[in-house]
Every structure is written in structure tokens, then in C-alpha cells.
């Protein structure tokens, strides 16, 4: 251990996406010091990939008139299939509008309302009132009663992240990029910071703080086909789970996006359907109205994704070398619209598939997209189990999304939660003292040091980490996908257990010196398999269907037995998570029919 | 900020250099174009050429113009010259970069620098020669051309017009008055035309009977 590599601060923020940076700004505004860590330069965080938009009930545009946080709340609760924490959802919906305005104040160039009549691609004519001219506009997104998704052309996440980061720079907040947190330092009661590996040199650093925040984003890359960035490996969740004391919530709730482009799995944003795109089958038939006459292509994500798979299973999929898929058709929106409002999509189609969406159909298939589950926290963002540990953003299970997140609600979550939780962290931190002992730091440091040495020496075995990863991905893709059954889930759990044991016997093939990428991955991998087991095992145990968790053998939602949240713990030395359940907080709306999807599944 | 940068920081100097670069560059292009058209009146016959030369001298236009050109020539040498990669290391980087990048506009610039250096030498010789042999007249010029300066001009015409053409293009590009691509095509056409006219003029000089 090297004292030059020890950094002490008030708040250690692991993750420089929107959630982490928003927390940092709030903390700085309260006069506290913080250090942000990130695997990559902050502006490359996956938040920048969000194209579609951010929900907030402003009600400025014609199709958003009459919107309010109440309606947003109803949509969110319904979307979550009553799995969310309604107190959190209420707080969130009430705060979202001012959060959007604040981002505007800080510099986000939100698209604005242009007064006057316009014709929508559906043929409907709307009239934007001059009274709202120049206010923040919104677009249509799945699962929402009003047009509520604020956007900047097709780069909402990008402009949000750049603006947020500009403020971080302005405020002089310390940013250490290319630094990977590899272990939380704790004594079973308090979290004291983290052991961090430098991805430039491979050296280990120690970060000590009064509070530590996990804002590390999602775990999409556990799945082979995911829209997520390749760094989204759920490392924050693994860090928390590894403590043995902090539980993960609702890990089985995995969202699949209806339109990942085959075969690169790059997301074609919901904006394409929001702006009027259709889904077609192999006969070029627009099938969504057959299943969902009301919302059609714009029903909530889980429903659309499931309908697509259902349709493929009924034999209407298009054959291809990469498996069956369907078509997304946006040709009728016109070249001009596609090349301006949907330019990113047009570029993606051209660069990655060599097709022109103004002329060609886009091959799409449901693809892993979002992790509703994560580090379980209370409404203040404090993780269960360890004092001084917080989580925020996609890494957390604050529980705004329950079993299904609405598109546009997660960008909003990162910012709204960052604001609210940031305040709470500041309060906590102001009253807390630096608590650590040399011995504890040394132990945690030694633990990682030993792991690194063993991986390099190959003392525990010679398993190939990349081969193991392929197997993990396959198991999740095949057995823990959109449609789930007990038999398949059991198979996944058994296989993953085996992979987990083998992951403890990885040996490097390179010398592991410096910032060796194989070593980085090998250090991370066992934690990833633990997450995979939480997902598979949680899904196996939950014998009902709710939101994105769909059991073919239990196709109904079962509020009698399962109106609860899964908590997954990983006791030391275990090979399976220990599952506990806690009730869901229902304050305003009692469980009911969602008004889309289930109604027809049930009958 | 480093001390040496702090104490020499003067944002206006850069600005004036930039303005001077623009004016001197454009002025030289205008001059060069007029100059070659003027010299090319030899195609219409030595009388026209002489009449023009005398006409200009009568109002001292020639002298004023000549002084301005010399000032502009050296001003340009100084301001544009500051962009020339002078150190050996810089030279190495630029050549390597241009070869790797295979980018036409970057190569165009590399050759502009080279042609600029060539013009510095050739242009200075030329101006010297012309000045020490004034006044200008068709016969005198033709004599020079036939006495061996033909090859000198055959080199100078394309060098200077390549340099002027690319320079003009880059000025338009930098100030963004017009979109790049059309400006590029127009300048290429004009440059080639002028080089052609200049070559015909040289030919005309060669045809002239000098006594």
C-alpha cells in the first residue's frame, strides 16, 4: 500500500454518468468536497447514448396539454405493474418538471414549442398555442397518456451529460477518470470508501470518504445481445453484493427494448415509433394493432417486446443468418424528417447495416436494454445494510420503475434522484465523521492484491475468462429472456452455478502487468456471474408474471402472493443468492389492470 | 500559464497579423492576376502593351503599384511565413502526417508552402531584374524572355498561380464566405485559364522580332 495513492474526501462518487454527476453538483452546492471516479472520461458514460428523451409533465406542447405530475404518476405506477414504490414515484413525478427546467437553465438546448398548426404522421392535425411558443416541447413515448418526453433532437442523453459535465467542470469538482472501483471498504456496518484500480497504470489506490455513492449504471452486458455500452457490466451492483450485507432489489426485472437492430444490437430509439414508425412482419403486415388496438406500437416496452416475440413464435418472423427478426418501417416519415429529427437513426442504419431507412426496412428484434433492479436503497438513496453507502441512477433500485420502466423515465430518474439523493447525502455527510482504521483498509487492499497475484500466477486454475463470459451470456440469452419457464430457469441457474465456480479459477494468459485489460475483466467477472445468478434465481422463484418478468407457466400477475420486491443477498462463500422479499409501498393507486397488454394475455 | 507566455500575451497582435495576412494575401492575388493580364496584352500586340505601360507611368500608377506590391510581398512573407513549419522536427511531423492522411487539402497546403518559398526566391530575382531595367517596354521584355528567361517564367507562372489559387481558396474557406466545394472548382478553372493565357503571352514574347 502506497500512501501517495490514498485520497481522502467527503463524498466518493463512483460513476460519472448523469446520476453520479448530478449528485456531485448537489453535494458541491452544499459546500462538501467530492471525488468522482469513472472507468472512462465522464462524457463517454452511457448516459450519452440515450437519444429519445426525458419525461417531465410540463404540458407545453399541443399533445401534452393538461398533463400533470398526477398523470405522470399514474403512467409510472401502471408501467411498473404496481411494482414500484409509490412514495418514490410521487416524489419523482413532482420534481421532474423543475429538474428539466434546471437543466435548461444550465444549458440543455431542449427542443421548443413552435406555435401553429401541424400535421402529425398519424394524419391528426394539432395546433400549438402561441401562448406556449418557445417553451420546452415534448414527444410521444410508449406507455404515456400525454406527450411528455422532453428531448433535444436525437441527442437528449448527450446534451444532458455534456451540460451536466460542464457544470462539474465549472464547480471544480475533482474527476478521476480511467479509475475502476474494485472493492468497497467497510467494516460490516459502515462503508468507508473503495479500493480502486487505475486503468492507466494498473496501480491500486485507496479512496476514503464519509459517504460513498454507487452510480455505476446498468448491467446490460451480462446479456450477449444488449443495447448497452460494453462497460455496462453492473460493477457497482457487484461491489455492493460482494459485501454480503447490501441486497440487490428486483434483479429479475430486466427490460428488453423492442427495437435493437439486428445483428449489432444497437438501439433504434423509441422516437422512431413515437414519430410514427410501424412494425411489420414477414408479410409486411403491421401487426401491432391486432394485439394492441389502442396504443399499437406505443404500448409499454415490455408489452411491445413480448408481442413481437409472440408474433415471431407464431411464424411471422423474417429469417436471417442471425435468427428471426421483424421489420421497423419509418420510410413514410419522409427523407427530410428522417435526416433531421431522426438523423442518429439514419446514421446508425447506414454505418452499421449499410441500409437507408428512408428507402429500406430496418431489421429489429427485442434486445436487453435496461436493468430495473439494482442496489436496493430507501427513498433517500441510502443502501440497505451499510451506513454511508448510497446508490443512484440505473445502478440503484430506488424503486421508481418496479417491474418495468417507462422510456424516458430513467434519464429523468438519474437527474431527479441525483438532486434529491444528493441533498440527503449532503445532510448525512455533514453530520458524519471519517471512520476508518488502518487495519480494515489494509485487509481490503490485501484482498485485491492477492486476487491480482493469483490471477497472474494462475494458482487457482487456468479457466479462460472470455470463454466463461460467452457461456454466461448464452445462458442468460437462452433461458432468462423475455419468455421464462421453470425448466429453463432451473437450467440457467445450474449452469451459472457451474460457471461461477469456474470463474473462481481463472488464470490469465497475458502477464497481467500494468493496466492489463484481461486482468481488469478477470477481476470483474466473478461478480458478473453473481449478478447473473441473482437474475436467474430471482426469476425462477417469482412464480407470477409482472411487468417485464414474464413466466409462461405463470402468465398472470399474482398480487396475492407477489406484490413484493425481491431482495438478493450474497452470503460469504455462497454459490446462490439468498432471496428475501419486502412489501411494495402502495400509497395512492391500488393494483389494477394496466389497460394494455395483460388484459388480452389474461383472457 | 508560463511566465514567458504571460508577459508576451497580447491578443491584439495575433489579430492584426491575421488581418494583415488577409489583406496582403488578397492584394497579392489581385495584383498577380491584373499583372498577368497586363503582361498578356502582348498577345494583342506590342503596341497595346507599350501603350498600357506608358499610360500607367504617366500617372505614376506604376510606381505606386510597384511600391505597394513590394510592401505587400514582404508583409506577406512575414505574416504567412510564420505558419511555415521551420524546425526539423516540425518538418518531419508535417510530411509524415500528410503522407499518412492522404488528404487533398492538406497536401495542397504543403505545396503552397513549398511554392511560397520558391516564389520568394524567383519573385525577388524577377522584381530585381525588372526594376533594374526600367522603363518597361514590349521590346525589352521580349528580349529578356528570348535571352533565356523563358524557362524562368515557365517555372514562375504555374508556381505563382498554384500558390495564389490555393491561397485564395483557403482564404475563402477560412472566412466562410462561400461553401468550399463550389469555390474550389471555380478557382481551379480560373487558375488554369490564367496559366493558359500567361503561356500564350510567353509564346507571344518569343514570336516577337527583336532587333
Amino acid at each position, binding site marked *: 500500500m502506497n500512501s501517495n495513492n490514498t485520497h481522502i474526501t467527503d463524498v466518493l462518487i463512483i460513476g460519472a454518468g448523469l446520476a453520479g454527476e448530478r449528485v456531485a453538483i448537489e453535494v458541491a452546492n452544499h459546500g462538501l468536497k467530492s471525488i468522482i471516479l469513472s472507468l472512462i472520461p465522464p462524457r463517454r458514460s452511457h448516459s450519452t447514448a440515450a437519444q429519445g428523451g426525458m419525461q417531465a409533465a410540463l404540458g407545453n406542447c399541443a399533445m401534452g396539454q393538461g398533463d400533470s405530475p398526477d398523470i405522470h404518476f399514474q403512467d409510472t405506477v401502471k408501467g411498473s405493474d404496481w411494482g414500484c414504490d409509490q412514495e418514490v414515484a410521487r416524489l419523482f413525478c413532482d420534481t421532474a418538471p423543475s429538474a428539466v*427546467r434546471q437543466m435548461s437553465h444550465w444549458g440543455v438546448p431542449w427542443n421548443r414549442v413552435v406555435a401553429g398548426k401541424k400535421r402529425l404522421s398519424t394524419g391528426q392535425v394539432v395546433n400549438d398555442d402561441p401562448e406556449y411558443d418557445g417553451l420546452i416541447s415534448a414527444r410521444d413515448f410508449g406507455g404515456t397518456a400525454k406527450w411528455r418526453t422532453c428531448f433535444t433532437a436525437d441527442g437528449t442523453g448527450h446534451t444532458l451529460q455534456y451540460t451536466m459535465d460542464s457544470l462539474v467542470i465549472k464547480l471544480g469538482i475533482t474527476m478521476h477518470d480511467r479509475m475502476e472501483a474494485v472493492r468497497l471498504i467497510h467494516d460490516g456496518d459502515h462503508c468507508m470508501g473503495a479500493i480502486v484500480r487505475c486503468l492507466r497504470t494498473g496501480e491500486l489506490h485507496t479512496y476514503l470518504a464519509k459517504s460513498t455513492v454507487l452510480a455505476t449504471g446498468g448491467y446490460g452486458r451480462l446479456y450477449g445481445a444488449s443495447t448497452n*455500452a460494453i462497460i455496462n457490466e453492473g460493477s457497482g451492483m457487484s461491489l455492493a453484493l460482494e459485501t454480503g450485507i447490501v441486497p440487490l432489489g428486483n434483479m429479475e426485472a430486466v427490460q428488453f427494448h423492442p427495437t435493437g437492430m439486428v445483428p449489432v444490437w444497437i438501439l433504434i430509439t423509441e422516437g422512431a415509433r413515437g414519430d410514427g414508425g410501424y412494425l411489420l412482419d414477414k408479410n409486411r403486415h403491421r401487426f401491432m394493432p391486432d394485439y394492441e388496438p389502442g396504443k399499437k406500437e406505443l404500448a409499454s416496452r415490455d408489452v411491445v417486446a413480448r408481442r413481437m416475440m409472440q408474433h415471431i413464435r407464431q411464424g411471422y418472423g423474417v429469417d436471417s443468418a442471425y435468427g428471426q427478426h421483424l421489420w421497423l418501417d419509418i420510410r413514410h416519415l419522409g427523407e427530410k424528417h428522417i435526416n433531421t429529427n431522426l438523423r442518429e437513426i439514419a446514421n446508425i442504419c447506414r454505418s452499421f447495416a449499410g441500409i437507408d431507412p428512408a428507402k429500406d426496412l430496418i431489421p429489429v428484434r427485442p434486445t436487453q436494454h435496461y436493468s430495473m433492479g439494482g442496489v436496493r436503497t430507501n427513498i433517500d438513496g441510502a443502501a440497505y445494510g451499510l451506513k454511508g453507502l448510497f446508490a443512484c441512477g440505473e445502478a440503484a433500485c430506488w424503486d421508481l420503475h418496479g417491474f418495468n420502466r417507462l422510456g424516458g423515465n430513467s434519464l429523468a430518474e438519474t437527474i431527479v434522484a441525483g438532486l434529491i439523493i444528493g441533498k440527503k447525502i449532503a445532510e448525512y455527510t455533514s453530520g458524519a465523521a471519517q471512520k476508518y482504521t488502518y487495519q480494515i483498509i489494509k485487509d481490503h487492499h490485501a484482498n485485491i492484491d492477492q486476487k491480482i497475484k493469483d490471477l497472474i500466477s494462475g494458482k487457482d486454475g487456468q479457466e479462460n475468462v472470455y470463454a466463461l463470459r460467452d457461456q454466461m451470456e448464452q445462458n442468460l440469452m437462452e433461458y432468462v429472456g423475455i419468455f421464462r419457464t421453470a425448466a429453463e430457469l432451473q437450467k440457467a441457474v445450474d449452469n451459472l452455478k457451474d460457471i461461477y465456480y469456474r470463474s473462481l479459477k481463472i488464470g490469465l494468459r497475458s502477464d497481467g502487468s500494468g493496466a492489463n485489460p484481461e486482468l481488469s475483466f478477470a477481476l470483474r467477472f466473478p461478480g458478473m456471474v453473481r449478478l447473473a445468478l441473482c437474475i436467474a434465481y430471482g426469476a425462477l422463484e417469482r412464480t407470477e408474471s409482472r411487468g417485464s418478468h414474464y413466466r409462461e407457466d405463470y402468465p398472470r400477475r399474482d398480487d396475492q402472493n407477489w406484490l413484493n420486491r425481491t431482495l438478493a443477498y450474497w452470503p460469504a462463500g455462497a454459490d446462490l443468492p439468498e432471496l428475501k422479499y419486502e412489501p411494495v409501498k402502495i400509497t395512492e393507486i391500488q393494483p389494477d389492470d394496466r389497460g394494455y397488454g395483460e388484459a388480452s394475455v389474461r383472457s | 500559464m508560463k511566465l514567458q507566455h504571460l508577459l508576451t500575451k497580447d491578443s491584439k497582435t495575433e489579430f492584426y497579423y491575421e488581418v494583415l495576412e488577409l489583406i496582403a494575401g488578397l492584394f497579392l492575388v489581385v495584383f498577380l492576376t491584373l499583372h498577368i493580364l497586363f503582361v498578356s496584352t502582348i498577345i494583342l500586340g506590342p503596341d497595346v502593351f507599350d501603350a498600357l505601360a506608358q499610360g500607367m507611368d504617366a500617372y505614376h500608377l506604376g510606381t505606386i503599384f510597384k511600391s505597394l506590391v513590394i510592401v505587400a510581398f514582404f508583409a506577406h512573407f512575414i505574416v504567412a511565413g510564420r505558419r511555415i513549419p521551420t524546425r526539423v522536427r516540425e518538418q518531419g511531423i*508535417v510530411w509524415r502526417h500528410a503522407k499518412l492522411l*492522404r488528404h487533398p487539402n492538406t497536401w495542397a497546403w504543403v505545396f503552397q508552402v513549398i511554392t511560397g518559398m520558391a516564389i520568394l526566391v524567383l519573385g525577388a530575382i524577377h522584381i530585381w531584374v525588372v526594376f533594374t531595367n526600367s522603363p518597361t517596354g514590349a521590346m525589352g521584355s521580349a528580349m529578356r524572355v528570348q535571352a533565356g528567361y523563358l524557362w524562368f517564367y515557365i517555372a514562375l507562372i504555374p508556381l505563382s498561380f498554384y500558390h495564389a489559387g490555393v491561397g485564395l481558396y483557403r482564404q475563402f474557406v477560412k472566412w466562410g464566405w462561400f461553401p468550399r466545394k463550389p469555390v474550389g472548382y471555380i478557382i481551379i478553372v480560373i487558375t488554369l485559364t490564367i496559366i493558359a493565357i500567361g503561356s500564350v503571352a510567353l509564346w507571344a514574347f518569343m514570336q516577337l522580332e527583336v532587333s
Partner: protein
Amino acid sequence: MSNRTLTFNIFRFDPYRPEVAPYMQSFSVEELDGMTVFVALNKIRETEDTAIKFDFVCRASICGSCAMLINGRPQLACKTLTRNLPKKITLMPLPVFKLIGDLSVDTGAWFRHLSLKTKSWIHTDKAFDPQVLEERMDNQTALDIYEAERCIECGCCIASCATANIMEDFWGAAGINRVARFMIDPRDGRSGKEYFEVIGSEQGAFGCMGLMACDDLCPMELPLQMQLAFVRRKMLGLGFKV
């Protein structure tokens, strides 16, 4: 389609082991349909040399991590299809930026420095009031700002610019475009003089020689020529005033 066998010549160097001189190492890869350099590099790392360093994050040309010299030209490796390349492919890290190792360079630190130097944030005296409606803005203005803000900080424009290659502290097209983004933003209260201080110099607008490699090679196809010229013209006007 009979697939080719591609040969990748890859630059190898570890700045933390300067005693090993940089060298080029070659790898063969069987080409697959729809293969990108991203796919090929990962294949090489997973099957041939697990120590090789390169950066990818989004693999969808959104994040700007993966720019490198592909056969000499700066490009995003994630969106470069091998089918558009010859059989022999040379990969080198971007010049100008600090080398981290092999194909990985520190564009992040460079751009952070740029943001600091150009003070790339909205300068305003107004405090945010959560109770009040947002300030109105013309939608076209919003779109214009976005047009400049689309830059993903990949560094292709910097690496391709000869000026930036020889002039240590030149901010290049990305830097000048960044300033343009704030200049057109009505929320930014900086005066002309302040802007002139920031960008009216050889490090900024006046350093550019109009080489246009930036404009030709920006993977986001930002209208860099027009942005550079816009700032230069603004500076011309301001230069006479301030």
C-alpha cells in the same frame, strides 16, 4: 461471398515500459459479414493477445472513445466496416493526444483541459428558480446550438489537423466549435471582449489555416468549416471593437 483473411498491423507501445521501442505487430483475422474494426479487435484480444489495449464504450458511434488511425486516417473504429477496407489494415493510435498504450490515447484529459480553458459552460448571473417557467427560446436557436453540441469529443479533427500536430496548444476545430456553441446561446452572458480573450488568439480561431481535414474527417459530420468561419468572422468584428 468468400470471406477474406484480413491482416491487421497494430501499433504496440507501453509508455510505462519505455525500454521496449514501439513496434508493429500483425494478426490475421477471418473476415465475417458485417464485421467492424471493433469486432475484429475484440476477436484479436480474446483469441490472440489478451494484453492489447484499445478503447471502446458505446460501440455505436455515440461516445467518441474509439477513434484511431485506420490506414492512416482518423476514424471511429466501431463504425468502420472491414468490407470497406483493403485486406491489409494498419491501426495506429491518434497523434496529438497522450499515449496510454497501444491504440489507447487520452482524449478525455485533452478535452477536459479544453473545456476548462474555454470555460465551456453557460455564464449567467441569473439564479435558477424552480417555481418559474423556463425562459423561452426560439426552436431554431435550440437546433442550432444542438448542431454544434453534437461533437462527441472523439479527437478525429484534432488528429487530422496538421496545425494541431505541430502546435502544442492549438484547440483545433473541436475547440473552436465548442466556443461557437456558447456564442450562439442566448443564455450565455459573456461579452464580446470575453469571447475575444478566450478564442481570438493563435491557440484559437487564428491558429486555423483552413486545412479542412477536420471538416472532411469529422465522423459526426459537423459543419466545421462554417463553424470555424463563423467564429473567425465574429473575431474579426470584435477585434476592431475591443
